[in-house]
């Protein structure tokens, strides 16, 4: 934890603060169907053409039920589209490596994963996906799932800001404008920048390189069915394999990586994700990728403040996110920099901490920072292996996801997730000022509380339910690479990541099995739409309400007290729900590590 690293952290956080307001202002124009931007001359005709083709009347707004129906229809159709392409990959063009079609469960899992902005990958991209699959089947979701998330957040903000209104916006207009005015232009610029840093963008077949030094590795011997052969004592039979060539991935990478970060999708082009030299070539590309994945989430809070005409509230929500973000970074960094006492005793520790699973190029600080922010947001891109973090260092990403990824969060999803906690905070603490709870002038009544709780209970239900099921099932345990508390952390992380639509993995878990693919797919669907639908209902309910003018007796949703309360609520609800499971996983593991046991 030296001065250069501190300065770099300060630079990162400073840049995040600086982009918040201008980007937030721009978001406001994008979300406004009549908003003007400097891209209008170029994009406006395209926008109008799109409306004409799809017969959308941009002037006609939708009630929450219509909005939800449109959102679900759109998601379902695009999900089926991707599923179809993945299943037919071998018949389709742009497949120079001649990859076969994906299995039913993997195609289901992958299609769901990209539709829900999770980008959980049960496969290694470079050895599974054709260029067409990457560019069309997957990348469109990187745009659309991000746009859907932002549209939902924009609709919820409209619900909060409006009064005695029946509509919350037009889904088709929102998605179109977000894609055309925000995501496409930003990604174009960002992709060109990434190419300038050395990231690849081509349609070449993979290249083969001859290794200077051939290597021999020991691998499990499989029978004809691909099942490992075991000896009489049940141990797998190993055989030696000599490697002398390396296949180097090629393809349209920069275009996918730009939206992967900006849209907080996180699905890597290569399996190593942002740890791959092509996918994250320079320190600058690393820095800007980290900034890209938080900037829209951060700007959304500014938009909230502006739209509700309470900029202080916007900044207060931002402050709560920022405080938790900073705390997470520092804990994770500290834990990783402290390293593993076992390594130190054995004299094999890296000088600056736990380097296992980290890129030497990025080092401890940039790995810890990346791991924290990628789970703050529901991004899930990684530049190091979270599985190899120290237990406490790994607890930070896990906890970030379990609290609902509300620390800036996924584009749109972060804000609407945070607003759940805002409403909960207002409801619990609001009574203490002697009035029935109200949020920005709207009374929070039974219906609203029901919707907010529905949206938050679903997360606990999916994560804990599936984890418990998997942990006692043969299908669940057979995929584990590690036993003991660490194995439990891996399962817990997988479902947490799925339900939270994060998509990062703790690795160590072979998730590409029919059971895991299917259950994780269901977890992702429930985690996404089980949350969005009640929140849109909340938006509709809030939009219909009258606004009670604020007075000295009104519960204030800005200022230090509110920020503390909000953070307290998030930590308490997060901790209270998941502490028992965390205790059996990372917490016990951490204590065991201190005592000398590793898993």
């Amino acid at each position, binding site marked *: 934890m030296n001065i250069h690293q501190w300065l770099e952290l300060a630079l990162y956080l400073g840049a995040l603060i600086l982009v918040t307001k201008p980007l937030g202002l721009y978001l406001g124009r994008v979300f406004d169907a009549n908003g003007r931007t400097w891209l209008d001359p170029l994009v406006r005709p395209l926008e109008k053409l799109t409306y004409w083709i799809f017969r959308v009347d941009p002037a006609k707004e939708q009630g929450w039920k219509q909005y939800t129906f449109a959102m679900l229809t759109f998601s379902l159709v695009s999900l089926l589209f991707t599923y179809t392409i993945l299943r037919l990959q071998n018949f389709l063009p742009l497949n120079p490596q001649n990859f076969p079609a994906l299995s039913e469960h993997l195609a289901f899992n992958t299609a769901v994963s990209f539709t829900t902005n999770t980008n959980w990958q049960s496969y290694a991209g470079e050895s599974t996906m054709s260029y067409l699959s990457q560019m069309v089947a997957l990348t469109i979701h990187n745009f659309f799932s991000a746009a859907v998330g932002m549209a939902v957040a924009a609709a919820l903000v409209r619900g909060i800001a409006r009064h005695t209104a029946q509509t919350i916006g037009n889904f088709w207009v929102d998605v179109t404008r977000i894609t055309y005015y925000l995501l496409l232009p930003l990604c174009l610029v960002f992709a060109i920048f990434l190419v300038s840093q050395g990231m690849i963008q081509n349609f070449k077949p993979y290249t083969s390189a001859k290794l200077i030094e051939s290597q021999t590795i020991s691998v499990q011997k499989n029978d004809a069915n691909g099942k490992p052969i075991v000896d009489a004592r049940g141990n797998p039979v190993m055989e030696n394999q000599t490697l002398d060539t390396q296949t180097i991935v090629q393809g349209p990478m920069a275009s996918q990586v730009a939206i992967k970060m900006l849209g907080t999708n996180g699905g890597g082009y290569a399996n190593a994700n942002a740890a791959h030299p092509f996918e994250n070539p320079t320190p600058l590309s690393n820095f800007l990728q980290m900034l890209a994945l938080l900037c829209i989430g951060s700007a959304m809070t500014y938009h909230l403040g502006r739209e509700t005409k309470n900029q202080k509230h916007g900044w207060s929500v931002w402050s709560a996110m920022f405080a938790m973000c900073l705390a997470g970074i520092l804990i994770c960094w500290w834990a990783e920099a402290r390293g593993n006492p076992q390594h130190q005793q054995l004299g094999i520790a890296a000088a600056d901490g736990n380097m296992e699973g980290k890129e030497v190029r990025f080092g401890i600080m940039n790995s810890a920072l990346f791991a924290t922010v990628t789970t703050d947001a529901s991004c899930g891109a990684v530049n190091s292996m979270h599985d190899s973090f120290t237990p406490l260092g790994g607890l930070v990403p896990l906890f970030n996801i379990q609290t609902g990824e509300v620390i800036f969060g996924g584009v749109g999803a972060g804000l609407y997730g945070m607003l759940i906690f805002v409403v909960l905070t207002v409801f*619990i603490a609001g009574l203490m000022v002697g*009035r029935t709870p109200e949020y920005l002038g709207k009374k929070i009544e039974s219906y609203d509380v029901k919707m907010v709780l529905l949206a938050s209970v679903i997360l*606990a239900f999916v994560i804990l339910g599936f984890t418990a099921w998997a942990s006692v099932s043969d299908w669940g345990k057979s995929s584990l690479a590690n036993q003991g508390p660490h194995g439990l952390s891996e399962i817990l992380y997988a479902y947490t990541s799925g339900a939270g639509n994060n998509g990062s993995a703790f690795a160590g878990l072979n998730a590409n099995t029919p059971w895991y693919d299917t259950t994780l797919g269901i977890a992702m669907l429930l985690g996404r739409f089980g949350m969005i639908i009640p929140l849109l209902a909340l938006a509709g309910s809030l939009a219909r309400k009258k606004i009670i003018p604020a007075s000295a007796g009104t519960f204030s949703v800005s200022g230090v007290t509110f920020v503390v309360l909000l953070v307290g609520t998030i930590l308490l609800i997060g901790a209270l729900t998941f502490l028992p499971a965390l205790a059996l996983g990372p917490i*016990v593991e951490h204590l065991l590590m201190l005592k000398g046991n590793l898993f």
Partner: protein
Amino acid sequence: MTHKSVSIFDGKILAPALGDTFRKLDPRLMVKNPVMFVTLVGAAISTVEIFRSPADQVLFVVQIAIWLWFTVLFANFAEAVAEGRGKAQAKALRQTRTQTSANKISDDEKIKTVDADSLRKDDVIVVRAGEIIPADGEIIYGAATVDESAITGESAPVVREAGGDRSAVTGGTRVLSDEIRIRITCNPGEGFLDRMISLVEGASRQKTPNELALTILLAALTIVFLLAVVTLKPLGIYSGVTFSNPVLIALLVCLIPTTIGGLLSAIGIAGMDRLLQKNVLAMSGRAVEAAGDVDVLLLDKTGTITLGNRQATAFLPAAGVTERELADAAQLASLADETPEGRSIVVLAKNFGIRAREIHELPGAQFVPFTAQTRMSGVNYEGQQIRKGAATAVKQFLGGTLSPEIESAVETVSRSGGTPLVVATQERALGVVHLKDIVKGGLAERFQRFRAMGIRTVMITGDNQLTAAAIAAEAGVDDFLAEAKPEDKLALIRKEQTGGRMVAMIGDGTNDAPALAQADVGVAMNTGTQAAKEAGNMVDLDSNPTKLLEIIEIGKQLLITRGALTTFSIANDIAKYFAIIPAMLMVTFPVIAPLNIMHLHSPNSAILSAVIFNALVIIALIPLALRGVKFRPLGAAQMLQRNLLIYGVGGVIVPFVGIKLIDVIIAGLHLA
């Protein structure tokens, strides 16, 4: 009726409450409260588990089961005590109805003595001096003085008469003079008291909107913790830890918000009890809750902000007239005027050495009473026609002109909030009497406190703009509505409500009824008409207009108590986790020891301590739930910080101390 509040742990309440505590164990009743229902199921399962436990764990499981039952019983007890207190208060009011017979007038005009309980709505009865009015009703004929001290505690008798706004009578009050005919307005069991009693009783009690929303929150938390605990079983199997059912149930009950879950309904009932102590009958729990939310208070000037009558405070003579001459004329004109204003003129004139003359001392004097046509009163005496009245009336009397200095005096008086009375003879105006509204003491500070809480006060008066503005300034209200007609009141309420504000008002007259019905909190005075009482959602038995302020404080206190105990309940969970989680894992993973930060004696004692604390805290908080948290009129920000410090931070710390203490005792007694 006595007005002292019934003590929380009065024996008369405790004994029946204990019975109710067990009666409430009926699962059909318990299921209305999801948190306590889960606790009940947990207690039942633990009881069964006693027989399935290994011998060395039996004592532990027995204790767990006992304390879980206690948790449920304590919660039931809290509700029973709150109900008992409300019933006791209502009963005390009801006992005033000692009358067992009534003089019913049958259709053929014959008077028949019947049982009071047989009276039905629209029956007509006659009540004579000395008799008690048997039921709520409306005077249709006659006038009488009525002693209402049984209901209001006010000893001075009041006049009740047919027609107008003073026609309603309440059952249990006594007629002191004259004879009246009353039309009964409600069937037995449907009077205000009966409605009040049913509101505090469990059977017909409806959850208020906020209570319902809070119940949903508590139910959701219960579901989440149920998930967290149920999934521990398979996670334990994976990790090679066996969690016994009693331990899991103990964890569950400690985590679900039993504190607020057990006290929630008691808090609501206690709010109604406290209103009753202030002699206010609430017609619904919703009204009490709404009182806390009020943004605007509509207050009638007369009676609420000012003393009911104006008083003469100065004589402003015209040019060429001495103050004494004016005082003399004014007194003469007021001798026959029995209104408080008239009498105050006579009294003020004494200050100028004019003794109060009696009417019979003035032979030949002809007194002219006030009429709606002339709008003046006065006397014709010794050839002089002395008159006093409003400036416009006197102007007409004098042929349409008033001297400039009189006009300016009238203007000055009006502007200062007073009412100018011009005194004149048939020849000329002698001067102006300054009648002043006397603002009640202490109101300005009170309104100041309301302003701090964000509540706006609006004064309603029939006075003109100038007068209204001056009184409004003196009383410290935020706004005023001058020259108001009854329908203006309704329009103002509608306007405020359209702007999203909640409005409270107090009223008595029949023409107040629409406004009372429209207001979110409409308090009808007990002396008011039946129509007004039906329209409002509260009745003030004391008919004291300033009561509105106390009603709002009780509403706020109710909501704060709910929020404070919810926060406390959730904050408690942190310590319980630190007690139970290490205890559960200690055997399999001894490395967890550092998390046992309270250094509890043993795993069993840790779990037991948490369960016992969880049960005892309900009992400990019953007085607070019934009394309500201490209410201070502060702005929202200070109020929040204060309550957050006490109940939030306190809620984190207290259980650490409590659980540790209980653990020490348990270890000392070798109970675990």
